């Protein structure tokens, strides 16, 4: 589904990603872990197409297409979804309006018929149950005045409605209490299917108790320095990241 080859990227002239190689197959869940500043969020933003992040080398192929040539909106329409670490507040734009516009723009792109108001509301109500979201949040402005937990749940709701092929969760667990974490993870798990993949970007192992990854990668200083299965996450939790840094320096 996703093939990243030797990806280099700069932010403000400084190289953050220094040659990432990663393959995610259909149906897999990958976790990307690493200390702060290692480039985890940069990778997530580069995949979503943020223009402040300049790709200097390498390629990203998504379902046979050159992802880096696509605009952010076309990436979303092709099936990429980024759950933001810091969801943006947009006063004056209601959640419903955002979701309805988004889903129909995606459907139009894929030559599917647009949903009318009734069909959309039916779908939306079903998905809201998944993330245990209160109906009153729907008519409110996007993330405006939402608590941290509500914002993250809102991201997962959007994901549930848009049904992406590849979801990238950027530190979705940060700042969540255990109840909110469980709800978010539960939402993600229910959406899991053999034809969808997920990349979970996280600093802590905690979330991986609920979203069990097939593979775990450790990102350090702009490179993936170690890959393994879910046991690697536990090892990281127990030992921290320092031993990896040392290993790296020896290598």
């Amino acid at each position, binding site marked *: 589904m996703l093939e990243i080859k030797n990806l280099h990227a700069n932010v403000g002239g400084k190289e953050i990603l220094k040659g990432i190689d990663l393959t995610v197959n259909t149906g897999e869940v990958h976790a990307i872990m690493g200390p702060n500043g290692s480039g985890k969020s940069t990778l997530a933003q580069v995949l979503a197409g943020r223009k402040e992040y300049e790709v200097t080398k390498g390629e990203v192929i998504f379902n046979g297409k050159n992802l880096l040539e696509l605009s952010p909106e076309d990436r979303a329409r092709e099936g990429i979804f980024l759950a933001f670490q810091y969801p943006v507040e947009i006063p004056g*734009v209601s959640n419903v309006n955002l979701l309805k516009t988004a889903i129909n723009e995606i459907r139009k792109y894929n030559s599917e018929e647009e949903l009318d108001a009734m069909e959309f509301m039916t779908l939306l109500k079903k998905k809201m149950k998944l993330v245990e979201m209160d109906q009153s949040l729907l008519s409110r402005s996007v993330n405006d005045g939402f608590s941290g937990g509500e914002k993250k749940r809102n991201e997962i709701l959007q994901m549930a409605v848009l049904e992406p092929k590849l979801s990238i969760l950027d530190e979705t667990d940060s700042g969540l209490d255990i109840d909110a974490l469980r709800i978010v993870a539960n939402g993600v798990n229910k959406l899991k299917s053999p034809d969808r993949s997920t990349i979970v970007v996280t600093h802590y192992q905690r979330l991986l108790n609920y979203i069990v990854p097939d593979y775990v990668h450790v990102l350090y200083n702009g490179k993936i320095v170690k890959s393994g299965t879910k046991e690697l996450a536990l090892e990281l939790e127990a030992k921290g990241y320092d031993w990896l840094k040392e290993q790296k320096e020896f290598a």
Partner: protein
Amino acid sequence: MSNILDIKNWYIKSFESFESSLNGESSKPFHQIRKEAMEKFSQLNFPTTHDEDWRFTNIAPLLKYNFEPAAMAELKTQQTKNFLFENLKGNTLIFVNGFFIPKLSHVKKSNDGIIVCSLANQLKNGSPVISQHLGKYANHREQIFTALSTAFTRDGAFIYVPDNKILEEPVQILFITTTSNKNILSQPRNLYVTGTNSQVSIIERYLSLDDGVYFTNVVTEIYAGENSIINHIKLQEENLKAFHISRTEVDQEKGSNFTSYSISLGGEIARHDINARFNDEGSECNLNGLFLLTGNQLFDTHSLIDHAKPNCSSHEKYKGILDDTSHGVFNGKVIVRRDAQKTNAFQENKNIILSNGALINTKPQLEIFADDVKCSHGATIGQLDEDAMFYLKSRGIGEEKAKAILIHAFASDVVRTIKIEEVKKYLEEVLEKRFNK
């Protein structure tokens, strides 16, 4: 005409023929005020960019023309009915080139003392409301355009709601201009007066039937009696060659509540001065504004809220969206006088610039002489929020649509608090049409 003196003489000469057209009315007491205003007009100068209040607004393009006082023109109902909000069933007053046209208007018979009619009618009848209020709030001694309005006062909208009466349905007032290829000057003069515990909503629309160059110079005086509630909506939708100079003066008695929406869409040069004074305690004043500018338009709004008495509150929210090479000016002055303790005054002016050529000058001016008050102001100028743009795009929404959504959200912040559904819906449509291509 090349010379300002010639232009002034032109208006002074016009006044002579105006006077003779008044017939018996020139014997009424108000005519003395007209004459005094004309005298002032001849002494005052047209503002230039050297005047602080007109620093950013050069009216030279307006002074290139010698506008003729408009004559009465006939229109068919067909030509005006699309301008009315058809679901509103209240009184309608329709003016063409500043003259009231009874045939096109619809005034309900009332036996509770409420008066909705033309100012001309009240001037003719020698109404006590006229002698008490007309010309009392808009100062013609210092402002040349107000002097011009007062001197040429002949017609406009008149609303009087006596004590304890409520006019349930909003009054709709249309000011339509049709030029017939003449550079005309239309000068509606409006007066709205409410008694104790009364209530009224007023919608004014300024519209053009063609794209000729003309000049609307309008002065509206509003007196809000004790505990009365006035909602005032002004929609300025004149053509892009029109000049629109307007002044709204509001005098508020104890416990009164005045809310205004000033929406400015049209005009080559448009200027709106809105001033409110608290004469007594416990009053509230809400000034809202939205201006959408394109092409070479210039819009200037100056407001003054005079907290002369304690325990009053004012909220001001103006938003501008500027495209192409348009130019906007916001000047919001709030004076909190020494006695005006426990004042709440909030002011906000936010602007979005959509092109490199557009320009906004914004200036909040707070003058506070009392010490136990809550006042704040904020002015921002910016482009669309990049983070919000990226967020929308990352959800599959294309560039143009994402832009439209954000602009719409920005503007609807003003529009959505309008209480008259029909007006709100109409303005939402205007926004939709303009920004959601």
